């Protein structure tokens, strides 16, 4: 078992990563897809606007990148803090 201060630092780094990623998650879906759609109305794409694209396709693509980025970042953190399996 890793010592306590190391695992605390690991957990704090994890929480910071989660917070950052949740902001991106929120902005890409609830933001661009719903709440901010009127602001993106000026950017047209294929007969509609960018907000429509984010709501129907863009958000899912952002989610994909987020998960793999999180997995990569956590693998690195695991090793740095010596808590990997």
């Amino acid at each position, binding site marked *: 078992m890793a010592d306590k201060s190391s695992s605390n630092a690991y*957990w704090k780094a994890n929480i910071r990563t989660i917070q950052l990623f949740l902001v991106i998650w929120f902005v890409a879906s*609830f933001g661009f897809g*719903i709440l901010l759609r009127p602001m993106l109305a000026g950017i047209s794409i294929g007969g509609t606007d960018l907000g429509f694209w984010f709501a129907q396709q863009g958000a899912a693509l952002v989610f994909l990148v987020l998960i793999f980025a999180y997995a990569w970042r956590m693998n690195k953190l695991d090793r740095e803090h010596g808590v990997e399996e």
Partner: protein
Amino acid sequence: MDQFTLNLLVVGATFALYIGIAIWARAGSTSEFYAAGRGVHPVLNGMATGADWMSAASFISMAGIIAFSGYDASTYLMGWTGGYVLLAMLVAPYLRKFGKFTVPEFIGDRFYSQAARNVAVICLIVASITYVIGQMTGVGVAFSRFLEVDNTTGLFIGAAIVFMYAVLGGMKGITYTQVAQYVVLIIAYTIPAIFISLQLTGNPVPALGLFSNDVNTGAPILATLNDTIEALGFKSYTGQHDSTLNMFLFTMTLMIGTAGLPHVIVRFFTVPTVADARSSAGWALVFISLLYLTAPAVGAMARLNLINTFYPNGVEQPAVELSQIETAPQNLWVRNWEKTGLLTFDDKNGDGRIEYNANNDTNELNVNRDIITLANPEIANLPGWVIALVAAGGLAAALSTAAGLLMAISSAVSHDLIKSQINPGISEKGELLAARISMAVAIAVATYLGLNPPGFAAQTVALAFGLAASSIFPALMMGIFSKKINNVGAVSGMLVGLVTTLVYIFLHKGWFFIASTASFSDADPMLLSIKSTSFGAVGALLNFITAYVVTGMTKEAPEDIQELVESIRIPKGSGAATDH
């Protein structure tokens, strides 16, 4: 060869494949039965999770809802993909580290209370049975069409097959079968979409075709669709017509419901390491996105093709003649679906034409949204084997999810209730019998309620997400991210979340989904236009608040539990599952 024989052949061949795999990969131990021996590669696990996840709601129902609601239905697309981000970051790695077999087991241990575990079992059963009702609706639609019987008969046949299928094997059999089912369902979904996208836009990638130009009008296909449906009095396709609050809450409900549904979470118990649990969520989303990026194109293009059937010379010209519908070969699909009772037309004004528009008094066509995906290849006049393939894909989607859900229900009953408290000395044989009986009861209840479902398949499934979102997700969250939340707090939180959401749903959909007992219609302004499907996020908030307030008034979780929480937060030492 006629279509009926072709359907039977293709569906029969895929079934033979699943059964073959199930026999080849039969479970040998309880660890294999519940968690596939934890030896499943993350990519394969992601694929199986994709099949488990994408049910009749995604495959059969979602594109139909998108076809008729346009932009407003984006909530389904965002909600059912965004939840995987939450699963990967907030739930899966920690529960894998914890290393037990069921979700109620984690809740019981973390909140050091049998009561917490029992409440979690109740939440799981309520959410999962609601979910199975949605699957039954979808299975009923699929079987009624391809066996050419009415919807009720289709539902009963479907229930019998789900039962035989689900009791066959454990998690290991299910995992490999689901990989095969994923392959069948994604091919079945994509091929007709490619054909239709080529026909309408010349672009072979449906996801790109959605934003391309219509080959007939030269204008973007979404602009053409807007003009066409607005000419018939329908609301625009790309515009927002639902309230922003409802869309927000509904999307949130689907997302957190995803991260709280036990049959999804257990998928991450089957991978070898914590790191694999994180990447497995990513792979699952890769495979899910292949369908979810195509679905909006399927919806929009199906709507356009549907209107072209009834207005073959354009919406400015008179509608199709009744005699055409009854005899012309390109309208065979209308006659086929009429047999299921899910599509009806009636020449009310007796002008010999079938009009389709937004006016209830003059509209002469009713189309159940759940038939859109299955009817799509027929509407576009695609070859017979494509139609048969889509039937097989729809059944693969419904069966794989129903199996996963029934597995979750039966392990909750046999493992969390009977083995852990009612009769700890039960034999393996007895445990298995209890599991099968609980599956049978769940199927019977879901079939009965599926006869008069509370909504289209995807809407019923959305209710299940609301229930999981309001009860299980917050308990998991607090169990991992707070060391202090105690047993009383968690139990009262779960109960408040579950009960408020369930009551809200029953007030709208009728008590126990018996429609005549409903007191509100959906989107009642008195309730801020929050639909019953969107209430889960509110229930979750109430759950969190209750748990924090109650914990604040009682003693915080003891030292050994706080240590348990610390240990699940780091991957080191996950090893193999500890047996119960």
